[in-house]
């Protein structure tokens, strides 16, 4: 069995505890985290995190297809605003 499989996904323990508490409440809330290295787990689906990018906490709404990725992947540290043109945003 490869080492990465038997070790399992990495998540900071304190985040896991806090996310489980947040799941119990149904409030509109953002959980601010610094742990960009933690893996997105299935129990985080539906929660919104504010992931620090060195300057701001960017809102990350966790969906099923993000499971297995790291939080840092959704909070870029170098950004370019781009052009709006005909781009659209869908309200979740």
């Amino acid at each position, binding site marked *: 069995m490869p080492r990465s499989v038997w070790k399992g996904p990495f998540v*900071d323990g*304190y*985040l896991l505890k*806090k996310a489980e508490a*947040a799941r119990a409440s149904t*409030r*509109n*809330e*953002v*959980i*601010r*985290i*610094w*742990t960009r*290295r933690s893996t997105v787990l299935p129990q985080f689906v539906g929660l*919104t995190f*504010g992931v620090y990018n060195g300057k*701001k*906490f*960017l*809102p*990350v*709404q*966790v*969906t099923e297809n*993000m499971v297995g990725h790291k939080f840092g*992947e*959704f*909070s*870029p540290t170098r*950004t370019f*605003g*781009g*052009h*709006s*043109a*005909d*781009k*659209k*945003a*869908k*309200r*979740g």
Partner: protein
Amino acid sequence: MGELGRAHGVRGLLRLKAHCEAPIDSYNPLRDERGRVFVLHPRGADLVAIEGVADRNAAEALTGTKLYVERDRLPEPDPDEFYLTDLVGLAAFTAEGKALGQVRAVEDYGAGPFLTLSGPPERLVPFTMAAVPVVDIQGGRITVEPPAEIEVKPPEGEAEE
């Protein structure tokens, strides 16, 4: 919608830096800042031919031209979908009427769109029904219910390296 780049070849083709999601020729005719009209025909990945531009000299004169389309020619978006150009600039208020500034940007890095409100203080608000229940484009305002923020700091001695 896009910007014309450098000339390509001797038959009046130009490079195009398109900013739109739909093919740019679906918005024909386009206009520039001076009101000149352009009809574009794509030629490959990032090249366009422009009606009335047949040689390199004419094409070089157009380098750097920015192309626009009137807002009312954009197709109607789906329900609960909004053009970024409509959202940017809207005034943000809480349900109690407290001003939160204007929408300065709408960004999406793969984890759902969020609004940047100018404040002060600047706020990043997820673009969800819970956080932004009312979007009134005609009225030029949105109603925001700023989400509660919980900080989850690493315990002492467990700081990330």
